[in-house]
């Protein structure tokens, strides 16, 4: 047996209100996007402000009632709050985001010292590769690209579902459902060669086929989000 430390990417839900029903609603919405994938998914609750007076036992219950597993609580917490959380057997987590920001500044300075000609491209220690599915996605099938883009080399049939936390590229016709930015990335887009979907969704904002502009039906299109509205653009008109 060995003991080592590993990094994990977790779903984080921000809490900025004492009203726990808002949290319940938010989690439910997320779960409904892909019930299979989010069942018992680990989640971290991030408290936005230490002035919030929260009942942590209730919070834990709300999270588990929605079918998620509470891994821990992070954010702006006062000492008494941390103690209170610990007595509930919930972990207090420290986000690494601030440390990451500092590290980024440092590497930038280092790079400036190196003459440009000698600079080597930065080697990424780890990155998540795009998930590629070759072949048709048939009715009843669900493809999920966790924390990455999804490429489908084939048609997505009616009754099929393709989901990605990043962008979705379909080299074929989209006749089923496509949900990009499933974890809430509003900059995610869907690209397809023939748009006749049952539903398209970006970061939880969705449109059904009847609500989509008819001039794009069957055309190669990009589906993206602008000002929280689904926007369609023609794929072939982009230079």
């Amino acid at each position, binding site marked *: 047996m060995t003991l080592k430390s590993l990094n994990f990417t977790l779903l984080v839900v921000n809490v900025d209100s004492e009203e726990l029903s808002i949290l319940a609603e938010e989690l439910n919405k997320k779960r409904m996007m892909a019930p299979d994938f989010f069942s018992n998914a680990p989640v971290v609750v991030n408290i936005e402000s230490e002035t919030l007076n929260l009942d942590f036992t209730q919070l834990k219950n709300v999270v588990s009632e929605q079918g998620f597993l509470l891994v821990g609580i992070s954010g702006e917490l006062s000492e008494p709050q941390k103690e209170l959380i610990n007595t509930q057997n919930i972990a207090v987590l420290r986000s690494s985001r601030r440390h990451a920001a500092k590290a980024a500044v440092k590497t930038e300075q280092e790079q400036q010292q190196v003459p440009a000609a000698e600079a080597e491209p930065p080697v990424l220690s780890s990155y998540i590769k795009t998930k590629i599915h070759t072949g048709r996605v*048939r009715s*009843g*099938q669900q493809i999920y690209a966790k924390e990455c883009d999804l490429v489908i080399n084939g048609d997505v049939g009616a*009754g099929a579902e393709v989901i990605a936390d990043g962008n979705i590229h379909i080299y074929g016709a989209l006749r089923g459902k496509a949900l990009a930015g499933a974890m809430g990335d509003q900059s995610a887009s869907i690209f397809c060669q023939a748009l006749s979907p049952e539903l398209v969704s970006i970061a939880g904002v969705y449109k059904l086929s009847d609500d989509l502009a008819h001039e794009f039906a069957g055309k190669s299109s990009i589906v993206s989000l602008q000002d929280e509205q689904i926007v369609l653009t023609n794929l072939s008109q982009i230079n």
Partner: protein
Amino acid sequence: MAKVIVVTSGKGGVGKTTSSAAIGTGLAMSGAKTVIIDFDIGLRNLDLIMGCERRVVYDLINVINGEANLQQALVKDKRSSDLYIMPASQTRNKDALTKEGVEKVIHDLKADGFEYIICDSPAGIEQGAMMALYFADEAVVTTNPEVSSVRDSDRITGMLSSKSYRSEQQLTPVKVHLLITRYCPERVEKEEMLSIDDIDDLLGIDLLGVIPESQDVLNASNLGEPIILNQECDAGKAYQDAVDRLMGIERDLRFVTYEKKSFLSRIFGG
């Protein structure tokens, strides 16, 4: 090498049993020892279509449960000496079908020298249908030219590529063939029916055959005579073409275009 071929569709009433009977009979007529297994437990039909309902004593479930042996349950066809039927149980429910049981029956049939084992699947995507397709080497997906049938065929094709023995063991995938039944070129011409191209667009499965809509099919079912034995009618000929293609013989598509009858031929019945 024995081949297990499932005839399936997802949707009911599209011609699975009619096609199983026709294909099984056609293969047996070519001299290959063939058995057709009825997987529609509780709603058995194959024996009627094959005209052997009065000779059913034991069935598939009896064999799986060890209440009868294979030879007792197999019904020999009266017309072809190479054709056998394994009837379904009419009294049990579909949960009586176990993976181990079906595996043993198929194994024993192969050991018995059967070259083609045709599994006539029930409609739906539940236990009976799953068991019928699980051990398949090839599949004949039966589709009517209409949207709900096409979508169900899409679903079942997805299951063939994810829920079968071949997919679970990561062997070469089940070879899927598309059989379009009840095709009516005249209605396709009037755009009242999906065309072969439309269906190919939606499903992307290699076409095995197109059976034209025909009154003769219903008559054949009522008589308990597989339609392929009637080589006078278009549907029988189209099934024969499909069987030939299944055995690797190339055949041109027939009965897929609508030809308007000329004025004279209408008068003189040409």
